[in-house]
């Protein structure tokens, strides 16, 4: 299912890598190159998820995340931080300001895509509790069958 994903990243190469990986999954990707632009787009474009770099010119990712969490319209927006800052204290800071996930660069594209998928899924589940049960059932049942030795 196509979702609208906003990527806030100042490094052009990292931006095109993340954009390509997520577009390959069928998502619509919007991009912003700094915190101020990212904040504006997050408020105006109503994305389904935000992929957020931390070290940005001007307003950094921590501050942007904190601001989004303090506004009603973006308080529940799924936010995934992606940063070169990989210490435990950096991760703690990311989660403290309200990120749902914190990944350290370099990030494998499969990991990026899987993490986005997980977050989108849990957002859908939060709004439709019933669907979540169905989805989990479907997810586990065929896998057991495939892996079973009798098959």
């Amino acid at each position, binding site marked *: 299912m196509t979702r609208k994903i906003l990527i806030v990243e100042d490094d052009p190469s990292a931006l095109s890598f993340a954009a390509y990986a997520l577009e390959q999954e069928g998502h619509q990707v919007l991009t912003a190159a700094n915190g101020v632009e990212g904040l504006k787009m997050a408020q105006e474009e109503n994305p389904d998820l935000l992929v957020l770099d931390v070290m940005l010119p001007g307003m950094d990712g921590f501050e942007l995340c904190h601001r989004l969490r303090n506004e009603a319209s973006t308080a529940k927006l799924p936010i995934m931080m992606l940063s070169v800052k990989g210490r435990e204290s950096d991760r703690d800071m990311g989660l403290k300001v309200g990120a749902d996930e914190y990944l350290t660069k370099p990030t494998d594209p*499969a990991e990026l895509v899987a993490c986005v998928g997980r977050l989108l899924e849990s957002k859908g589940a939060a709004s439709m509790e019933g669907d979540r049960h169905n989805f989990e059932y479907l997810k586990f049942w065929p896998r057991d069958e495939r892996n079973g030795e009798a098959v």
Partner: protein
Amino acid sequence: MDLGVDILHELRTPLHSIQGFVRLILDGKVPDPETQRHFLTIVERESQRLNNLVDELLDAFATGSGPKAIKNECVSMRYVILGTILKLGGLAAEKEITIDSDLDDALPAVEGDEQALGQVVANLLHNAIKFSPQGSKITVRVNKRDSKLLTQVTDEGVGITREIIPHLFEKFYRGHSSMMPGACGTGLGLHICKQIVEAHGGQIWVESEPGTGNTFSFTIPLPQSELATSGEA
């Protein structure tokens, strides 16, 4: 100064793109040959950037202490500059760039950290070489101006746009890699220069004329003893 950890983090920025694009290609996620080629060009550019980062790191930490401790030595800028020109001569020769120096034999010494000031001169010269066209000229001048020693590095590069100038000395400011492919570093070099110069009580700035070149200048205050001597002269 807050150097060590941040600059090491920055090594991951180009690595992230290199590993990401290579993984996408190896996983068969990039079937279009044109797109594949485009991504490999980015990988090549990011590898070059990683190499530049390592060069900057080596510059910053080569002699161990880095710029953290500012010593108080008697420093001859003439000696510092000639030494740096010798060190970077090979790099300049690769692009057939000549480095001229205009240094008075009788320049007064300043008080400061010889290694840190050498790092400032090396950084400015390194940038000048990086952004100068093949076969151009770089000039290093040192003059006494009022109560300060003024060092200037002038190149014949493309010039810096007006919008970028106020950000040049900011931490992590890298310009745009699309403008200077392969030439972007950590965005720390000029920031470190500014910190070193300011720790010596001086100032650093740039003047740029698009199309004709740039002049990076910094001042270091002269010691009281020098001021007294020149007053008598």
